[in-house]
């Protein structure tokens, strides 16, 4: 089955500069984790911080464009993996190995039709 692993962390830990050491460190961890996953990794990406997010909201059928993320929360969606796993247990096992700050969450969602 195919799953999406959605990474939620407090993005402020990574600061706002590309050369922030915490950010560089986690990026390196993700790169080696991706290698480790090998063909089980179908895709994925890291996302720029929510300060650069734009939301298109539809209210009563009317669309409007807003600055900022969909919701202001303590933890934000910061990236995702698309993986192939035999079952949820394997997906959970992989999710537990996704590099993360001491606090954060990985949400596992099966892909529809996959």
């Amino acid at each position, binding site marked *: 089955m195919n799953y999406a692993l959605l990474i939620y962390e407090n993005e402020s830990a990574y600061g*706002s500069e590309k050369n922030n050491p915490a950010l560089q460190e986690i990026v390196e961890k993700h790169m080696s984790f991706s290698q480790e996953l090998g063909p089980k990794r179908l895709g994925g990406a890291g996302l*720029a911080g929510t*300060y*650069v*997010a*734009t939301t298109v909201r539809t209210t009563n059928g009317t669309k*409007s*464009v*807003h*600055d*900022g993320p969909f919701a202001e929360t303590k933890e934000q969606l910061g990236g995702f993996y698309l993986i192939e796993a035999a079952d949820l247990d394997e997906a959970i096992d992989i999710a537990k190995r996704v590099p993360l700050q001491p606090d954060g969450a990985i949400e596992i969602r099966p892909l529809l039709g996959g």
Partner: protein
Amino acid sequence: MSGALDATFRSASARIVGALAACYHDLDLAEEAFAEACARAAQAWQSAIPERPDGWLYIVAGRYALDLIRKRRVRDSLRAEEPEIEPSADEMMLDDSHLIPDERLRLIFVCCHPAIAPDARAALTLRTVCGLDTGEIAHAFLTSEAALAQRLVRAKRKIAEAGVPFEIPGPNLWAERLDAVLSTLEVAYSKAHEDAAGTGPHSAYAAEILNLSQTLAELLPEEPDVLALAALVRFCEARRPARTDAAGSMIPLSEQDPAKWDRVLIRAGDAYLKRAFELQASGARLLQTGIHAAWCRRQNLDEPPPWPKVLALYDSLVAIADNPITRLNRIVALAEIHGYDTALEEVDRLHSAALEGFLPFRAVRADLLRKAGRTAEARADYDAALTLQPAPAESAWLMRQRNEMQQ
């Protein structure tokens, strides 16, 4: 000399920052390069300002921008020799209009992009298109300079990193994006206009909106809403000298002395609005401005106020853009024609929880109750209005109306 220099720098700012930002898709770089050019000019022009200061500043800022980009690319490598940055005599032969591309319109669309936080759009436009410094804008928005600077940094970063296009939007996006530009200017102007006394921190800022609306009308002469906005700002500014009395109390529109209105501004507004109506028969912004035009046609206090015309325009406006605020304004005109009791019935039909704490609603209702002779109820509404923190001029007026009623 320094005053003349500052004026030169400010008037050159929009064209040059706009041209560089559009070229390099980087507002920060454009501003930094322009600031450097101004610093160099302050040195180089000590004896006299050159004949064509804009061209000089543009060439110097452009070279400095290129140099910055080059340095960023070779950061940490050996420092290259400083290139010759000041323009040669040959370069100064070109005419400014050919030398400096006019990218102000692109820049306005960038600054007012809907993906930029609404509270940053007007500030960013004033900064980059009008050349106001952060201190001045912070003053106008009644916020701290540090808070405003941070808002601008965030907005510029969003523009740079989210991929906001430095393009004039195409036909499929035009209506939405032009509306974002016009609403930004409207909100910015309403801030300036709130200050009835005209002596507060917003008064100079109103002059900037006057200029900006004119610039926009020059850049988009075929857009009726743009022309209507330029007209609206002129009608409102024309009346500024008559909006308060000697004691600093607000004077309602129908009691203002039209002899004090600025006829030059009114004529300019009339010309914009006439052109707008030639391009388009109707529309919310056109009708709204038409109401102001109707008032501005009044020549003196002996002439009756144009209530019938105003009511007819509000009727048309409610038909295409119905909202409680337009209805409330319509009721003010209705009262003068159909009587205060009819108007009060309509006000109470309009009444909803959303309007409960809305200052204009309380003020209008209080005024109608007073005129209808329902003193006790009027006093209650005046008191409610006064708790909603009206500006000092309006507060003084409400207080006087309240206290003039018979006990």
